[in-house]
């Protein structure tokens, strides 16, 4: 990937080479064009899809994960014939169904709809509205404003902390009826759990690497795996992460070791203040979990947290991993059924990358539980956010959040 200013050039594999330019439309959930695209209007018509009604005509359709009915070939060819098709399609994996539709339309009507497969890491960069230009196997991305955060002299985390360093009045917790929580990193001490699982493996393979480097490598591999395979169950994501770590470190991970790491969530400890703080907050708010985990693993964590949540939204329920917005949409729909409107919801989380960025994009208010405030390194197991984000409030711990609520209670 080559960067200069606010322009990035991505390189992939052209399934159907050609030239195209237009604004990106990034699909937030898998889409089958059959039943999902109305070729007459060029709009998404799948009633289960979060972007129902969006126009794809003239856009560069970015599909991080495909889901193809085999009749989608016909629908794409028909859309190309009618001029309602995307200008080009960017995929994360080769898709024969879409290729056939574009190929046949090219033969019949001499109209190209180039298709390029980009690696998952490239997909993580592209956002809806970015200007894209496709040229063979290359995709040039330009974004209005600042794309290259490395240009800034001040590190990202400092800028973020400065915005919430306590000089602002504290957020009024009385304005909320429901708290949605990230789990791992916020309530469960996942870094302790990850290190407890990885250290014996690293020792057995005689790998010398310090904890922060191991966590940072974990964070990179995990977010990549989650973006690449959004419907994989979390134990499989973790197993894949171990394989990636092994490859990075030049050692091996056996199938058994990968599977054991995949199943280690059940042993990850809770932060010592989580259960008490949740028990207290549960008397004042509806509590909802929005977590990058599978249901089975979460049951073990839930036992450590003590409380009964009003709703639990896992990656299995969302069909994707945060920072995809799916979790939040599902949670907000569930809360709406419980009579809680979005403006009465506060999202509480440690990860700026997984939680605050997507929650803010949806207009949610957020509380940063900055568990790593006293650590020297920036991210730990959590990647840095790709764009600047400003949470509405910040506390160092869950106990501090409960205290803040107590102090704000009328006497």
């Amino acid at each position, binding site marked *: 990937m080559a960067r200069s200013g606010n322009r990035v050039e991505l390189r992939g594999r052209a399934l159907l080479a050609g030239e195209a330019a237009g604004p990106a439309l990034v699909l937030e959930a898998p889409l089958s064009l059959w039943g999902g695209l109305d070729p007459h209007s060029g709009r998404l018509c799948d009633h289960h899809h979060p972007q129902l009604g969006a126009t794809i005509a003239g856009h560069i359709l970015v599909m991080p994960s495909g889901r*193809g009915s085999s009749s989608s070939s016909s629908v794409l*060819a028909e859309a190309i014939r009618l001029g309602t098709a995307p200008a080009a399609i960017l995929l994360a994996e080769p898709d024969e169904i879409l*290729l056939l539709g574009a190929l046949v339309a090219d033969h019949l009507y001499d109209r190209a709809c180039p298709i390029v497969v980009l690696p998952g890491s490239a997909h993580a960069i592209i956002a809806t509205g970015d200007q894209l230009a496709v040229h063979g196997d290359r995709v040039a991305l330009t974004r209005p404003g600042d794309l290259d955060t490395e240009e800034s002299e001040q590190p990202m985390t400092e800028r973020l902390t400065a915005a919430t360093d306590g000089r602002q009045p504290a957020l009024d917790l009385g304005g909320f009826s429901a708290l949605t929580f990230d789990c791992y990193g916020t309530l469960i001490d996942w870094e302790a759990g990850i290190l407890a699982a990885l250290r014996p493996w690293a020792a057995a393979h005689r790998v010398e690497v310090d904890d922060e480097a191991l966590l940072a490598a974990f964070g990179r591999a995990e977010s990549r795996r989650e973006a690449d395979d959004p419907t994989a169950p979390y134990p499989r994501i973790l197993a894949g992460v171990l394989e990636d770590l092994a490859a990075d470190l030049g050692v091996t991970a056996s199938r058994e070791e990968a599977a054991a790491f995949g199943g280690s969530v059940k042993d990850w400890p809770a932060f010592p203040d989580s259960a008490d703080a949740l028990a207290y907050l549960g008397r004042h708010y509806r509590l909802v979990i929005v977590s990058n985990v599978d249901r089975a693993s979460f049951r073990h964590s839930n036992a450590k947290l003590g409380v009964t949540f009003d709703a639990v939204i896992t990656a299995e329920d969302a069909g994707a991993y945060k920072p995809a917005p799916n979790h939040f949409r599902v949670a907000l729909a569930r809360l709406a059924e419980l009579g809680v409107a979005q403006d009465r919801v506060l999202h509480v989380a440690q990860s700026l990358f997984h939680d605050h960025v997507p929650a803010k994009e949806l207009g949610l208010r957020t509380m940063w539980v900055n568990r790593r405030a006293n650590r020297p390194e920036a991210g730990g197991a959590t990647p840095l956010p790709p764009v600047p984000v400003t949470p509405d409030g910040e506390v160092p711990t869950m106990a501090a959040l409960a205290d803040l609520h107590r102090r704000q209670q009328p006497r």
Partner: protein
Amino acid sequence: MRLSGRDRALLAGDDGPAAQLAMRIVVELARVTGASELLDVGSAHVDGCLFHGQAGLDFAERLRAGGAVVRIPTTLNVSSLDLLHPDRYRGDPDTARDARRLMDAYVAMGCRPTWTCAPYQLPERPGFGEHVAWAESNAIVFANSVLGARTARYGDFIDICAAITGRVPDAGLHRTERRRGQVIFDVRELPDRLVAEDVLYPLLGLVVGAETGHLVPVVDGLPPGVGEDRLKALGAAAASSGEVALVHVVGSTPEAPTLAEALHHRRPDKVVAVTAAMVRAARDQLTTAGPGPHRLAGVNLGAPHFSVAELGELVALLAGRSVHPEVECYVNTGRHVLARIDALGWRAALEAAGVRLVVDTCTYITSILEHTSGVVMTSSAKWAWYAPGNLGVRVVFGSLRECVESAVEGRVVHVGALWEPR
């Protein structure tokens, strides 16, 4: 990529422009799938005859005009029209005209006018290990799983190109290593009384499809010798909720005499213990109508197309009773099955009881239903999965017995005992 002399001759246009175009498309697909050569296929099942718009028609007519003829026995999937009961069609007449032109183009290329999504119910069907090029997700999963034939997930356009050239890329499920079972679905926890019921199998298929991703599932723990209609329902549902194109059922499907053989003697990637609660959740997911009471507008059976045996069971469950006058009850099936039940006297009995037999198409893909308000009941997971989006109907899923009792009584009847925890 290694091409045969014949492949190269087709590419050079020796058999005319249509065969040249078909071969180009097969080779393009081979390039994308990374195949190093092409394989001969013994038969094709073509899905492109279902009308989705002008482009599909233009493609078929371009091939036809270029002199295309299929080189291998080729059956046709359902279309948009019931040619035996044309008055049932309630859609736009221009669409009907184009849909008919599309059907005619495929027949003109030498395809057999079978118009069924269950080509495996026809007398001649592929043998074990035979390479075929089948489209239509439920036919694909049946051919791979139940017959042990080998087909990748083909769809529109490539299906007819394979039929014209007789060639496909050596990729996907054509290759032995890609047929290894990867995810075990252990059903031993399910109560025996549920395992004994037909209704379990489509629901189990939904669970398998939703949990498998793009891997190959293995169902382990069912009594041996699960019948073809149950395997059909399981596979069709798995191909609806997921991308399943092959499911091994230990003790019932030919590549799975034992669990170890289904796994190719390797460790599974994942094991899922299927619980009665998961099956119940799948059932509840299929019912899009909220809690009642509802007016029962219709009952739809046969997706995939009903077999002779399933129609026999329907006759037995009706037991001489008639469908309630305010309920439209449709059964989708193939022409060949209709001819068979005609000979058995069942067709007359069913029609006298008010059952409307639909052939050549299916009631969830075309405009046939008279009433789409109220709720529609079905015993087909596939029908229940797609009809709300395609037709805008609200669906109640139930067993065949529940569907029949509901059709007769004119209201939704549930036989609850099966589902109550003990």
